[in-house]
């Protein structure tokens, strides 16, 4: 699948900006507050896309209820988007037979023909820290997602382990389960100590064929690192 939209991603990977150049009649859907600049020819409308059910699903998947629709009814124009977190933006062309699972907050924008659904993940979602519900992008068209840090694609053929906090997106042809690091299963002697003290608790074990996108930083670790330096309010 090749991209249907004319786009470019500049200033990568720390503070990237996504520019989409919409042709007359084309539309683009983006998370609220992501727009940076826009040509006057373009038109923006905010609303619940896909009805209340889909909107609630998006909300449980860690996204906003509202989706902004940008259209070019009167002629071509360009628009720039910036994600909230500092990290790279990636493009994915849907339409190769499967969909893409997205971590909470990873969605940035998509073109026409793409559907976003909430998929119940249950216990593995809970333990993976990605929430009980994940977003799944389906259909065909362009999808843009963003991570924290740089974004690295990994082609999985067989199996692969990724620390739960670093999984950004993966193709839905991959099966996954949340497990402890191999060799750290409880009941194997001193392994429990490694499990608790090693800080490498749970991993996503992917199997099958497909691609996983890994973000090179984790927001939780960053918060932990910066926490001691925060200004503390002095109480009288």
């Amino acid at each position, binding site marked *: 699948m090749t991209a249907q939209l004319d786009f470019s991603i500049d200033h990568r990977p720390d503070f990237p900006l996504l520019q989409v150049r919409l042709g007359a009649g084309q539309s683009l859907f983006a998370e609220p507050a992501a727009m940076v600049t826009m040509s006057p020819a373009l038109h923006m409308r905010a609303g619940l896309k896909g009805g209340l059910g889909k909107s609630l699903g998006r909300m449980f998947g860690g996204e906003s209820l509202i989706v902004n629709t940008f259209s070019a009814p009167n002629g071509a124009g360009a628009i720039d988007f910036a994600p909230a977190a500092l990290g790279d933006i990636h493009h994915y062309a849907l339409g*190769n*037979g*499967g969909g893409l699972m997205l971590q909470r907050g990873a969605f940035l924008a998509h073109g026409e023909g793409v559907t976003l659904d909430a998929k119940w993940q249950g216990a593995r979602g809970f333990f993976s820290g990605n929430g009980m519900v994940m977003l799944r992008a389906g259909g*065909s068209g362009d999808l843009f997602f963003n991570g924290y840090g740089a974004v690295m694609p990994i082609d999985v053929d067989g199996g692969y382990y990724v620390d739960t906090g670093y999984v950004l997106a993966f193709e839905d*042809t991959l*099966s996954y389960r949340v497990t402890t690091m191999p060799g750290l299963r409880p009941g194997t002697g001193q392994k429990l100590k490694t499990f*608790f003290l090693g800080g490498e608790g749970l991993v996503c074990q992917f199997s099958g064929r497909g691609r996983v996108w890994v973000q090179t930083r984790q927001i939780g670790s960053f918060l*932990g690192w910066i926490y001691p330096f925060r200004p503390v309010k002095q*109480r009288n």
Partner: protein
Amino acid sequence: MAQFPGGVFDDGLPDGRAAASLVPGPEAVEARLDSGAVFVIGYDSLRMEFGGATGRMLFLRGAEPRLTLFSEAPGLLEAIAAAGGPASAGAVAGARAGQAQTRKTHLRNWGIALAVLVALWFTVPPIFRVMVDGAVQQLPLSVDVKLGELASSEMAGLGPAITDEAVAGFATEIVERLRPGLPPEIQALDLKVTVIESTQVNAFALPGGRMAVLSGLLKKADGVDMVAGVMAHELMHVRHRHGMRHIVRAAGVITALTVLAGDATGLLGIAAEGAALAALTSYSREMEAEADLDGVRLAAAAGFDPAGMPAFFRKLSEIAPDSQAPEALSWMSSHPRHDERIAALEAAIPGLVRAESTPMKHTLEAARAALKGD
């Protein structure tokens, strides 16, 4: 023939995969690509299993190891069974057996998880309580005193202390009358009470015995027995070391979270601060109930009317709407269910022995008269 949207994995394809329509025929499943290319897996070599991120995607493999067809379209398995008849029966049975096995495993895992949760729900809180109480008993009372000193800055922020003898002496006299009813080690503490100028109807005790009465309480109280009831309640928080218990409890929860959550340190730090604050601010309902019942007994033993405490609660529920109790150290706003507490107290009062009442040297009336703006 029915078509099912899906895709193909094959090393010969650009990017290794492509979208395709899956078409079950009488002898084989065909995958037709938009490019016109067709991939075929015959039923004689077909193996199928469910998988993918949702567990509902059907994967089809044949003799060629690098070729995989997949689709999540509902009804594909049934269509293959119908189109292939006996030829596809083996592969269909294999996929269904795998699906049934997965379901069984899921069900078993959920069952185990549920059972563990229920077991933890019933066993952890009592064990935890025993551990907390044991830990608090190991800590000397001097720790409570230190803790109270740390928290006393909260007290200074509430308003200026009133040093007028009519006011300060009144509060001190109540404490001195209550003191003999306390165990010796608590009596030995510096049970100092300060009256703070404030419109708030509130009083509190810090771990280690320092107490504060806000002057709004003296203004609103309908008699010395109400004030004594409140102060007896606060003294019981000191006597039962509720502040310490709360902190040890919070520390235990944080330790448990750390062990469970591994490297989620950032969120834990935030949670820890919240928990520490909660530990210093409000007590649990069981602690409040304990302070109520033991407090009313203490007040009666000192010769005060035990009915003062429930009467005060009634008064509180009347004036609660305009309560400006600070979020921290609040005596009343964080305690809902005045009714329940009043009922529990009134049930206990008939069984209490009230000591003989002697007149106070400092009266509430005199204290009030000395308060500014009254």
